[in-house]
């Protein structure tokens, strides 16, 4: 019962059934710094992550 979160070249395997917010905290990712996508759709912090799914995170911070 796991969910996979991918941010750039890093993958995090987490327990399914938690909210996105809890999953990000568990992975040590600051929610303010990413946008989460499920099958190309944006999802919010209160979304429950399901078993077997892959969530892609888009980093929002750019430098320069």
């Amino acid at each position, binding site marked *: 019962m796991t969910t996979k979160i991918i941010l750039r070249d890093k993958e995090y395997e987490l327990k399914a059934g938690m909210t996105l917010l809890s999953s990000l905290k568990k992975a040590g990712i600051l929610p303010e*710094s990413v946008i989460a996508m499920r099958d190309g759709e944006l999802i919010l912090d209160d979304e429950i992550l399901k078993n077997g799914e892959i969530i892609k995170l888009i980093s929002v911070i750019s430098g320069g």
Partner: protein
Amino acid sequence: MKCRTCGQKAVVNMRQHKLALCKEHYLEWIPGQTERFIEKYHMFSRNEKILVAVSGGKDSLSLWDILTRLGYQADGLYIGLGIDESIAYSEESHRFTLKFADEHRLKLHSVNVEKEYGYSIPVFAELSHRGKGRPCAVCGLTKRHEMNRIARDMGYDVLATGHNLDDEAATLFGNTIIWSGESLIRQSPVLPESEGLARKVKPLCRFYEKEMTAYALLRGIEYIYEECPFSIGSTSIYYKQMLNQLENERPGAKLIFYLKFLEARKQGLFINSAMDKSSLLTKCSTCGQPTSAEGECSFCRMIAKAKMPNQADDYQ
């Protein structure tokens, strides 16, 4: 979470505004707010010609998209920096910019620093010994010089950049911890035109970086996702991450930090530092742009230093 406007499923939640919106209403809200900021800060009118500095990134391409949707006359300016060593960063960012301009049938001016001045930004940085191993100072100097030169030479009324609130808050934080009065007084959504200097505006200065990313993704704007290889580990990114920690605990902290600064600035808190050098600007003896230095401006001195024969030989 539901959209405040229609009750459908929300895709963006802005905790600082206590506002969640669905895709359709978010894509309406961002241009509407941009229009509000353009008017509030008296940035420009529909009769004026705008030059948008586009880098191929999410902010500048979104700005170009928003301005043209709002019916402004906005052309693009891409500056090719030649940062193509570890990854083809400049090449890719140019490709995204060209694609956007082409698909939207917009006019794009492209300048290539290496073709124009002989060397790419990383080489100029090495030759001129500026920036402690990072070309960021040379890059900023060159972009400011070229943006102003082209805006003036091509008769644009105003130069627009895609700085978002996180960019502004990080700059503000950096200037505040060293109490740089001169820098603080120059930080504003609008810098009015003056002799030799084009008016500069930042229409996205009140949107969080996360909001601009969401706009680009929802609008389907393809942008360069890779970071500039030289920005990794930079101070500005460090400040952004730090401010995001604060924002996470205290929603709205970044916005208040920036807005309260603008208010203080308007009330004249930094006025003494401003009495300053703007009245002492002279014309650069080489390019004619305003400078606080005597003789040549920093950009022309950098070019001259890089082109000294004993240095340039190494890069032939």
